[in-house]
């Protein structure tokens, strides 16, 4: 197990704090990361479909995280 740092913003920062440190097995898939986030206090309020950014780009669902990346979870975008 290793500590993975996850940045949060806006409503997710209110729910979960920012940043989060998750104790997970690395590398980790996005569905496993999502499941680990859901197990946090109030993590059950995260949506079924979660936007995840890796190194400041929206991640494809099959992406693996090795632990050196900048990882962030993004609420629905509302700029413009």
């Amino acid at each position, binding site marked *: 197990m290793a500590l993975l740092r996850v*940045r949060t*913003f*806006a*409503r997710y920062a209110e729910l979960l704090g920012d940043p989060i440190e998750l104790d997970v097995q690395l590398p980790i898939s996005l569905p496993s990361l999502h499941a680990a986030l859901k197990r946090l206090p109030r993590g059950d309020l995260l949506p079924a479909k979660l936007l995840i*950014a890796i190194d*400041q*780009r*929206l991640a494809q669902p099959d992406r693996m995280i090795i632990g050196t990346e900048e990882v*962030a979870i*993004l*609420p*629905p*975008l*509302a*700029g*413009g």
Partner: protein
Amino acid sequence: MVGPYTTALPISQDAVLRAAVSPGQGAVVSFVGVVRDHHDGRAVVGLSYSAYLDMAERECGEIVQETEARLGARIALQHRIGDLAVGDVAVVVVAAAPHRDAAFDACRAVIDAVKRRVPIWKHEHHADGSSTWVDPTAEEGG
């Protein structure tokens, strides 16, 4: 134009305009997003924009450069971050091109991409003292 594309200070529409215009370009199309006094049927008194700033700057830069290359337009973009009142300018996009087709297409493409791709969030403050995080995926219009 190059960044920064986000600003915590009030946006000068004139400065954004000047960043896009040059003598070879006869058509200038601008989009200005202004904080409205209502949303989803509720009275709004103000809002706060927050952002994942590093990623927002990177996405804005990509949007501007992609659109400039694709449509031969010059583009300027500024998005406000922080606390805004009703009537304040939230975002300005200016697209300048030799002809109006490219200027309209570029301006529209940029604001659509900003709404779709840039990690910015809107906390809306209502007249009754409550606040909500705006979720465009859960509503009509925009």
